[in-house]
């Protein structure tokens, strides 16, 4: 119809400009800044990483990425992170519950403590945890008689990963829990539901998206963690060596392409995680709209 009449290319200056000044000026400037900022800080290193990795053929990358020592490090990095994030999901929920539901002296302090793993340099945390859980440490000495060693084992790695992941679950679940009206629980009770039924059928399903998002964030954080783990892990190849450390070791041996190959694997994993987190958040936002 009318589209046929329009010139395919508008001659500049002849057609009046359709868009007048926006009510929010500065779009062009801020977008330009955003793109160049992201380009330099995020995109460029990633591209450099892939270019470096591409010096090898795909089969060479595959060989490096699947060598037994690398595979063992994946198992620890991803397996340990999964266990740590699972622990955080349970205890993070309890912490969030206590902070939202009850009033008690020192609540503000505990609330602030939750953020400590964010703020503390991870190396400091790693050294402190190692000191505590070493066989002569405050906590480690009580496990030593039972033949349980924590520092310099995979258990130690998981403890460090749990430490750094805790704030994610708490901070994601807290506002959702706050948003749940007490009335919903009262409604369930007045309909004859027991406390347990109310939790299992009403509260938990409402919290689940937030819990999973917190889990995914804690997991992603743990997979990338380096500083705190290397002190408590002991870094024994095939046992307590995490993937980021393996990359570091390769770099120290001037095996830049090998490090880049492992880095590429981690990068793909990070992308997949981001995708999962975004999908969870989209799901959560459709579910948690006020009813």
């Amino acid at each position, binding site marked *: 119809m009318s589209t046929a009449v329009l010139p395919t290319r508008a001659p500049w200056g002849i057609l009046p400009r359709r868009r007048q000044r926006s009510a929010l000026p500065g779009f062009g400037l801020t977008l330009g800044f955003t793109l160049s900022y992201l380009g330099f800080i995020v995109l460029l290193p990633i591209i450099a990483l892939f270019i470096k990795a591409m010096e090898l053929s795909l089969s060479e990358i595959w060989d490096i990425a699947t060598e037994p020592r690398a595979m063992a490090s994946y198992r620890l990095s991803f397996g340990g992170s999964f266990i740590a994030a699972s622990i955080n999901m349970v205890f993070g929920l309890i912490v969030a519950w206590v902070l939202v539901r009850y009033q008690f002296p020192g609540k503000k302090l505990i609330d602030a403590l939750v953020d400590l793993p964010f703020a503390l340099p991870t190396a400091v945390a790693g050294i402190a945890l190692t000191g505590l859980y070493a066989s002569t440490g405050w906590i480690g000495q009580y496990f030593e008689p039972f033949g349980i060693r924590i520092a310099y084992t995979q258990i130690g790695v998981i403890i460090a990963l749990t430490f750094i992941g805790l704030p994610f679950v708490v901070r994601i679940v807290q506002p959702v829990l706050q948003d749940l*009206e007490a*009335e*919903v629980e*009262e*409604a*369930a*009770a*007045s*309909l*004859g*539901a*027991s406390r347990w*039924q109310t939790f299992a*059928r*009403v509260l938990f*399903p*409402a919290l689940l998206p937030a819990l999973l998002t917190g889990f995914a964030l804690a997991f992603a954080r743990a997979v990338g963690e380096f500083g705190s783990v290397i002190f408590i892990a002991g870094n024994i190849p095939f046992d307590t060596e995490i993937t980021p450390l393996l990359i570091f070791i390769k770099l120290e041996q001037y095996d830049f392409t090998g490090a880049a190959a492992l880095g590429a694997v981690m990068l793909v994993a990070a992308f997949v995680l981001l995708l999962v987190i975004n999908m969870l958040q989209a799901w959560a936002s459709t*579910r*948690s*709209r*006020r*009813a």
Partner: protein
Amino acid sequence: MSIAVRNVKKTFGSFHALDDLSLDIDSGELVALLGPSGCGKTTLLRIIAGLEQADSGQVLFEGEDATDIHVRKRQVGFVFQHYALFRHMTVFENVAFGLKVRPRAVRPSKAEIAERVHELLNLVQLDWLADRMPNQLSGGQRQRIALARALAVEPKVLLLDEPFGALDAKVRMELRRWLRRLHDELHVTSVFVTHDQEEAMEVSDRVVVMNRGRIEQLGAPAEIYDHPANPFVYEFIGQVNKLAGRISNGAVEFGGIRANLGIPDLADAESVITYVRPHEIDVRPGQEAAEGWLPATVETSSVAGPTLRLDTRLTATGEEVHVEIRRGHAEHDSLRQGDVVQLKPLNPRVFAPPSAA
């Protein structure tokens, strides 16, 4: 199922929410708890439901003490102002919830639950929404679902906390008429809380007017409107003019002008307040004084639909008097600022000022 509240007291810190309150509600009645915010009406409703515990006193259902029965076992249906629907469940699942959480021995079969849910959804005329999520419904629809959910467990009493408070005016009007019809169908003993006197009047069999944790007056809507027991009820139920004056020889004096208001047995008093509703005032234009008429000056005249509103000032005392009369009389409609009129209170009540009480 009759409800009896006996000498219930409830304090929150130093605030007396309920002050030794007793109330009887007959089986099948629809009763409104009416009062300003903070008067204790919601607290009373929640104590009847078992969502709140009284400090002392009893709640009886059909003569049996229910004070210590947990809300879970009390068999009350409770409807919240903000619906409190389970947002991750469909409409069907919401209504089915109360049946599904029953212990296995008394839980109906899946087919029975489905039948019951659809029956209730038909009752609230929303069966076609069974598969929707709560956030896809309008406010009015959500509240009807909340009502269906409460009715699903066959409650002995239905308790509604400001059920229409979150809805806009038009939906509110529709829904309260609908609630009245529904109650006439089901005859389940119902108590609802509202701060809207019009709503209380229109929907309920009896109105309980509350203030500061106490019952000010209890009665049928017309009775409360026509015969307010005290100044508080008078002021709370509808608009009112308050005129200061004194009584001597059976007549009220407003700043020197005596008016026999036709109230029998008035004892002499130095200070009284006469209450008169804006629509219960006769208006006659002109300067000409007469027994029982009070001269006043028109300050503004405005039109609200079928009603003419006059803001006038009494010549004798300078007090403002609001008058509402039907439009359509030329002599009234033509009144303008500065015109002198004569006012006659038609159904006045005289009370001692609150400070003396």
